């Protein structure tokens, strides 16, 4: 077990005007177990407490209560030992804009205890691995978002840690760079590095992680492998666009092959295990009852459906 967290909580005290204090419970009791070598995702909308959780595990923020062991060491009492065993790439990246990227890399290597020569060798290795050799000496402020992010991850890996934290690693990247970064994360897993990443992209969690937790309002609402979680909802989703959503919902909920129905203005989503067969029944039933539909689509259930099931709202709307 590379991460073991029990009932982690963090309450911030924000000052609001004179003498007034507002308590913000950013994280409200999180339990986590991450195995060695695993890519583990924390999925949730903005403001769910993902960053605060990672910051506590990475020893940046001290938990208000609860405990966590990272790489076998307590985050509060043995922070220095934890720091030797982790890489941490914050959402902002943390590469010095005012110097060439290689300088950040070399400094990080020297801080982790390497000699000048070892640092140079390790930097060269990482530059090559992340295709950064050619731009190593360019001022970081002239680099693109994707290049900067690659530098940030290279810096995070400088001490070859068994565990790396990636906080929202692909936020703000274009699709091409996102795909490249996913490949980098997969490579890390192949090399045996454990990865804990946070994301608010469903497809990212789905494509990349072995296991995940879904967090909302500082709490875990679901956990498991992406497949387990999706199966829990249903195999397929049929989305119908029609006028009389209430009638359609009642009608479909009564069908034995439909597991669950959700209605929003103008749309009804029906969850069922065998969509190909169920769809035909469904259309027939609707027609027999005189409910005209404007459009219909059949998709595999996604993690968004899992989120919807547990929180009552779509992740896309939750931010």
């Amino acid at each position: 077990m590379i991460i073991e967290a029990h009932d982690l909580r963090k309450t911030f005290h924000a000052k609001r005007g004179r003498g007034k204090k507002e308590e913000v419970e950013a994280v409200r009791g999180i339990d986590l177990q991450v195995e060695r070598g695993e890519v583990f995702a924390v999925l949730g909308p903005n403001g769910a407490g993902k960053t605060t959780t990672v910051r506590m595990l990475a020893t940046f923020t001290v938990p208000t209560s609860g405990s966590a062991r990272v790489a076998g060491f307590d985050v509060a009492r043995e922070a220095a030992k934890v720091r030797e065993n982790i890489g941490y790439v914050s959402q902002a990246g943390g590469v010095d804009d005012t110097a060439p990227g290689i300088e950040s890399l070399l400094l990080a290597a020297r801080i982790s205890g390497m000699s000048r020569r070892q640092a140079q060798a390790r930097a060269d290795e990482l530059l090559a691995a992340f295709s950064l050799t050619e731009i190593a000496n360019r001022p970081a402020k002239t680099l693109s978002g994707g290049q900067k992010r690659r530098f940030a991850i290279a810096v995070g890996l400088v001490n070859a840690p068994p565990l790396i934290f990636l906080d929202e690693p692909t936020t703000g990247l274009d699709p091409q760079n996102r795909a490249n970064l996913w490949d980098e994360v997969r490579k890390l897993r192949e090399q045996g590095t454990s990865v804990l990443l946070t994301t608010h992209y469903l497809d990212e969690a789905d494509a990349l992680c072995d296991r995940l937790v879904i967090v909302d309002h500082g709490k875990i609402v679901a956990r498991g492998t992406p497949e387990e979680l999706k199966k829990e909802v249903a195999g397929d989703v049929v989305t119908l666009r029609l006028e009389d959503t209430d009638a359609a919902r009642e009608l479909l909920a009564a069908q034995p092959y439909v597991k669950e129905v959700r209605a929003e203005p103008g749309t009804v989503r029906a969850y069922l295990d065998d969509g190909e067969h169920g769809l035909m029944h469904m259309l027939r039933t609707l027609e027999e009852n005189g409910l005209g539909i404007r459009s219909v689509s059949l998709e595999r259930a996604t993690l968004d459906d899992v989120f919807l099931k547990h929180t009552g709202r779509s992740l896309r709307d939750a931010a």
Partner: protein
Amino acid sequence: MFRHTMLFLGYELRKLFANPVWPLFGIMQPVLYLVFFAPLLRSTVPGGKMTDVLAMFTPGSMMMIALFGSMFAGFGMINETRNGMLERLAVSQAWRPAIILGRLVKDVIVLVLQAILVIGIAALMGLRIGLTEMVLVLLLMAATGLFAASLSYGLALTLRDENGMSQLVQFFAMPLTLIAGLFLPVSLGPQWLQTLAKFNPLYYAVEAGRSLFRGDLSAGTIPVAFALFAALTALTLVWSVRSLRNLAG
């Protein structure tokens, strides 16, 4: 600990040497004062000799860079509270005080080099000063700079806002320099101003500087100034390192 401080210092110095022009702009102000303002002061000095004017005015202009230059040292750090750099360093194996100490030592090195240039220009204009006195003046200036710079890092980490910080620095720097008698000794002023100046640490630094430039090593303000700035630096340094911890909330 020492190793990490040296690493951060080396990093900062490399950045500085990659772009060494800016500190030269920093000494423009005291040099302009020396050239264009000091001659106006001849009538205030008994005898009106330029040597005496320079001995009176040069310490003030040096303290000006020590204070103004260093009070803005923390500006660069405000961005680092946002771009994740400090966050990353805070969870690295770095000894935390080294993050600030490395920068402080760089600031002081730049300051001393600037001061040597200013003294050099003053010397060309006719200033004469002994070696011991000069070394002591530079040390005094370094102490003032250390205080102002660590205060600046503390402010930067606490405020984390460029606008607020520049307003606050201006707000404090102006009265401090006026009440210290940076340009003209407060002894020329009324009694209330002289009393007020006694509460301003910078006053002792400027007066100690003037005594040293006159070659008066026995002046009481010299040990007072050193003790005062050693104590103030210790306080602001501890504060700025603590502010680093508060980043995490």
